[in-house]
Each structure stands twice: as C-alpha cells, then as structure tokens.
C-alpha cells in the first residue's frame, strides 16, 4: 500500500508543478484549441493579417483588432480576411509595434473564439516569419522534455501498481474467507479515505493553479504572463534594485506607509477601546460591541462609498490622510476583538492595585496593563497590517484623484490597461512565501502550546 501512496503523491505533485508549464504546449490543447497569429502592420496603412490553421480553409472569419494608444482606441476590421494556409502555431501571437493591443477573433459571426488584452514585448523579431519560426521551434523543444517526464511518471505509476497488485494476490491466496472479507472491508474504507483525500487535493490544485501560474512565471523575464522565455531571475533583481516601473515603486511605498500608520493608530485606539469596553456596564458594552461589528459586517464597497460621501460632504481633499482614516476605520474592530480575550484572562484587580500604590493611570497602563495585553495587541497589529495591505474597495473610493496608488489599486488600473507589470509576479511570490512561513509558524507554536 505504501508504494502505491507514494505513486499517487508523485502524480499530484507532478500535476501541480507541470500543469502551468504544459498548458501552453500540450498536444491536448493544441488539438482542441484553435490557434491564431495576428499581425498588425507597422506602416501607414495599418494592415492586418490573420493566419489560421488548415482546418479553417474556406471558412469566413472576422477579425478585429484595436490598438490602444494615447487613450484613444483605433479599431480596424478586416471583413473578408482571406484564409491563408500556414503552419499551425500553438499560441496566440499579436505582433505589433504598439505597447498594448486588444484583440478579438470571431470564428463565425456569433462565436467569439478569442478575446483579450496584452502588453506587447519589444520587437525582438524583425519579421513576422522570423517570429513564427522562432516560436514554433521553441514550442517543439519545450514539449519534448515535459511529455517525456509525464510518460516516465505514468510508466513508474503503472509498474508500481502492477507489482503491488501481484504482491497482494500472492499474500492473500492462503487466507480464509473471513479474513478476506475483513481485508475487503478495510480496503473499502481505505478507498473511501483516499477518495476524499483526492477530492481535497483536486480542489487545492484548482485553488492554487492561478497562484502557481504567477509563481512559476516570476522566474522568466517575459512581459506577458504565460509566455515562457527561459529561466531568469531578472524580475527579482529589478524589483529589489528599483528598476521596476516607477508607479509600482511608489505604490509599494504608499502601501507600506499606509499599512504602518493604520496599524499603529488602530492598535492604540483599539487597545484603549477594548479596555474601556471591558469595564463598561452590560448595556453600554452591548451597544459599543454592536457599533464595533458594523465595519466588519459592511462590505468594502459600502464602507468606501459612505466614507467617500463623508469626505465630499466635509469638503476634505482626498489623499493620504483620508485613506489612512478609512483604513483605521476597518482595522480597529479587529484589534478590539483580539485584545478583548486577553483582558478577560487578566486579573481585573492589578490595575486598581497599581493606582492604590500611587501610580498614575498612564503609568498603570504602561507598566501593568500593556505587558499583559501585549500578545493580543501584537496579533491585532499584524491583522491590521495584512487587512490594510490587502484592501482594495475602501482605498479605491477614498484615495482621491491625486495620483495616490496602493498596490491593489495599482494592480486594478494595470489590469484595466491590459496586462500586468511583470515585477508584480516576484513581489507576490515573495508575499506568498512570507505568508506561508507566518501561518506555519503560528500553527506550529499553537501545537507546541497544546502539548
């Protein structure tokens, strides 16, 4: 049984790591997926050429490509695009000198076959033919080894299962009927067990596929996500040496600054509030707790819009200050909730004792309360940091039009423009790893405590 289990894990791991790599070049997709290559002429007349695989010969195809330039959309269509027999390619290529291209390809009038936006790479290839040639050979190269690995894994899994089956038959040949029956039962339970495990792992694969895509493609310097141009650490180097897009750099700084300000403010405010709430009478306590839960229940968009209306009504100019206030609003309730449990564990009389012994309230807070509440405050602080970094909805409505961008809003405007600044990929791979480490650490610490 053990050998079999290893075989199945090998499969799962292999699928996780190889699925993003193979999707582009797999024969499976190449069969079912119609492939196109588009070229937008660079000379004055702006011609458009569409090349289609042989199977499309004789079919009428409509193609429209729009090029985004200076916030103006040029749209040109080619209604009677001729069918050109050409080698088939296994990806979609838009070949142009412009920086961003929106493309739409209809197979017939109704059926939209492909549609999307791309930020283009610099023209590395002088001619269209050269471009095509380079890509077809590259595709052939990369398919080779990946499918070899897959075939190898399949072979190993097959051999392992055959061996284990034969071994099982041999072992059980001499068993009595009752023993065979108990073994069968046990095996059914195990099968159910592995079935449910398989379900969870499949879910996880789907859940992690997009993330894996980002992580895998952070190691190639191609501007387009999904276009593998060989292993390279250039994006990481760019990110850390500040060579990335200026907008991205300022977005990172603003995100860090806002998160720190919001987390510090909300930790102070929330800790004081938690102490206050804890010492209130039942009725007042209930009312304040209800108030505390309002920002947590409200979806981002409502919090954002209501604060936006407040700032408009007050005539406040929106910028860093308003974003910080907004972040404190939705972070503080979480700090309150993480400090409250510590308070209930604390001896309520220590504070009074400190006052009786001559401490001022501030001294008592600093020397008696805070050391006790520290873990709760810390977890509230970390929670506030992550919430602030992750927020999009509230920031979007309170950032104003002064050019202030945090990472989230930067990604949004980036994605709207069509494409993603490549340096975001290594940045988020790093964030993912840090988060993983933090979560593992927290769980590990909890386990230790439990023991």
């Amino acid at each position: 049984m053990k050998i079999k289990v290893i075989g199945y894990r090998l499969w799962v791991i292999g699928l996780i790591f190889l699925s993003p790599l193979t999707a582009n070049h797999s024969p499976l997709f190449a069969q079912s997926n119609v492939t196109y290559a588009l070229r937008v002429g660079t000379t004055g007349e702006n011609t458009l050429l569409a090349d289609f695989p042989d199977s499309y010969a004789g079919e009428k195809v409509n193609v429209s490509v729009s090029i985004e330039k200076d916030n103006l959309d040029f749209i040109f269509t080619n209604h009677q695009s001729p069918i050109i027999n050409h080698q088939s390619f296994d990806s979609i290529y838009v070949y142009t000198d412009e920086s961003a291209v929106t493309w739409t390809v209809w197979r017939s009038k109704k059926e939209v076959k492909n549609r999307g936006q791309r930020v283009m790479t610099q023209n590395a290839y002088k001619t269209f033919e050269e471009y095509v040639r380079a890509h077809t050979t590259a595709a052939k190269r990369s398919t080779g080894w990946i499918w070899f690995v897959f075939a190898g894994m399949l072979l190993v899994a097959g051999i392992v299962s055959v061996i284990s089956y034969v071994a099982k038959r041999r072992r059980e040949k001499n068993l009595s009927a009752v023993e065979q029956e108990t073994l069968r039962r046990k095996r059914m339970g195990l099968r159910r067990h592995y079935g449910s495990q398989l379900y969870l792992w499949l879910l996880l694969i789907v859940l992690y596929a997009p993330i894996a895509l980002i992580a895998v493609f952070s190691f190639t310097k191609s501007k387009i996500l999904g276009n593998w141009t060989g292993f390279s650490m250039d994006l990481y180097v760019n990110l850390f040496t500040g060579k990335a897009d200026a907008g991205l750099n300022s977005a990172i700084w603003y995100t860090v600054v806002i998160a720190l300000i919001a987390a510090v403010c909300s930790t102070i405010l929330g800790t004081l509030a938690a102490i206050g709430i804890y010492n209130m009478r039942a009725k007042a306590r209930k009312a304040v707790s209800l108030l505390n839960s309002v920002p947590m229940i409200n979806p981002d968009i409502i919090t954002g819009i209501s604060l936006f209306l407040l700032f408009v009504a007050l005539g406040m100019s929106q910028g860093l200050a308003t974003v910080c206030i907004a972040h404190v609003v939705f972070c503080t309730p979480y700090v309150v909730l993480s400090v409250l449990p510590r308070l209930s564990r604390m001896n309520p009389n220590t504070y009074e004792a400190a006052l009786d012994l001559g401490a001022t309230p501030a001294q008592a807070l600093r020397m008696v309360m805070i050391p006790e509440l520290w873990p709760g405050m810390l977890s509230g602080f970390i929670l506030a940091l992550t919430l602030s970094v992750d927020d999009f909805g509230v920031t979007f409505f309170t950032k104003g039009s002064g050019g202030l961008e945090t990472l989230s809003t930067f990604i949004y405007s980036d994605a709207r423009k069509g494409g993603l600044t490549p340096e975001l990929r290594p940045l988020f791979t790093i964030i993912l790893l840090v988060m993983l480490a933090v979560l593992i650490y927290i769980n590990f610490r909890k386990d230790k405590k439990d023991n």
Partner: protein
Amino acid sequence: MTKLVQIFSSRRTWAWPYVAFMAMFVVLPLILVGVYAFTDIDGHFTLHNFAKFFTHNEAIQTFLYSLMIAVFNTAICLLIGYPAAYIMAQEDFKTPKVMAMLFILPMWINFLLRTVATVELFNMCGLPLGEGALLFGLCYDYLPFMIYPIYNTLQKMDNSLVEAAQDLGANRWTCFWKVIVPLSMPGVYSGIVMVFMPTVSTFAIAELLTHNNIKLFGSLIQDYITTTDLLNYGAVLSLVLLIIIGLTSFFGDHDDKGEGGLV
C-alpha cells in the same frame, strides 16, 4: 487637572475616543448615504432619485442579475465546500490543520492579483472569458469563506451524537442527513452570509473576468458615485445594496460563533 485624572482613571472612559471616532466615521457616513439618496444636487429633499431607480431598466436588470449571480455562486460554494469541510472534520483525517491552512492561504494574496491570474489561466487554456469565468473567479475567491465556518462547526460537533445514531440503527445516509447536517446548520448559515455578502457587492473583478462584457451592481454603483452630477443617484443604489446586506446579516444572526473562527 485632578478632575481630568479622575475621569481617566475610570477605565470605562477609555473607550470614548473610539466611540467618538466610530460615530464620526462609521455611523455618520452611513446616515449620509441616506441623506444623499433623498436629496438632489443642491441639497433639497426629493424622491426623484428613487423614481429614477424604479424606471431605470439597466439598473434594475443589473441588480437582479447580480442577485442571481450571488445566489448561484453561494450555491456552488456550498456544494463544493460542504464535502471538503466534512472530509476535513472526519476523525480519521490526519492533517486537518495543514489542510485548513492550505485552504486559507490563498485568501492572504491580493484578490485582484488572483483574479488577474485566473484571467491569464483562462486565456492560456483557450477558454473564453464570460459568465463561466465570472462564476469560476467568484467561487475561487470566496470558497474558503464557505469551507472555514462549516469546518469549525463540524469539528466542534459532539461525535457521540453520531455514534448514538449509528448504535440506534441509522445507516450512513440517515445519520448524515438527520444528525450531521442539522447540527452543522449554524456554520452553513454563516458560510452563506460570508459568501453572499461580498459576492453581491463585488465590483472591479467582474470587468476583469468578463473582459468588460458583464457589469455587476457594484460596478454600476461605482460608475455613478464617482460621477459628480450623478452622486445622489449613486447613493440610492448604495442604499439598495445596504438594505440587501442588512437583510442578509439578519439571516446570519442564527449563529454567533462561526464567524469569529476565521480571524
């Protein structure tokens, strides 16, 4: 001065700054949404904005469509998430903590980036962007919110009840439907609320997932509220959303613990 010290030595008063802050930045803004909804540009009372909403075909249709998408998404998340939570809560499942962590981890990555990655995945596999991509993306974003509360209630469930049912002759299915499901309902309720509310109010990601073809109610609100002349109409739309949110959170009131587990 001594009086001030006296006031602040009573710890009850320490919450005052927070209460004042919340009144200013949570309660007042929510009231303002209502105020803006009932006034015109010059600040005079009017019901015209509401009249406009009920005759505005696009808004009504978008609203109903968003509700439908949210219901679908919640149903899909429940169908996929319940079995996952159930499996994780089984006694013989050896690594529930690691599994739960793996399911939560994606939530810590910026949801916009995950959405963009989903779009790229669809492009790469040659799948068309549209309603399917929208539902996939939403489900992908909010599935952990469904799994976690259900997992929490199932895990805290007293297993002797299940054993008692089995001893009294219930088979696996009866036991599941008559004992486990009713006991896990609080988790299901809070899961539904936690998936439905963000889905119905979602904005920004629908455009990315459908290549600007499908607009949800959140995006509509965003369009109007950021246009100066139509701000009051945007406030009406927000009020409608706020009512839906309020109704949903009443629905989720059955449960008082499930939500706390997430953070």
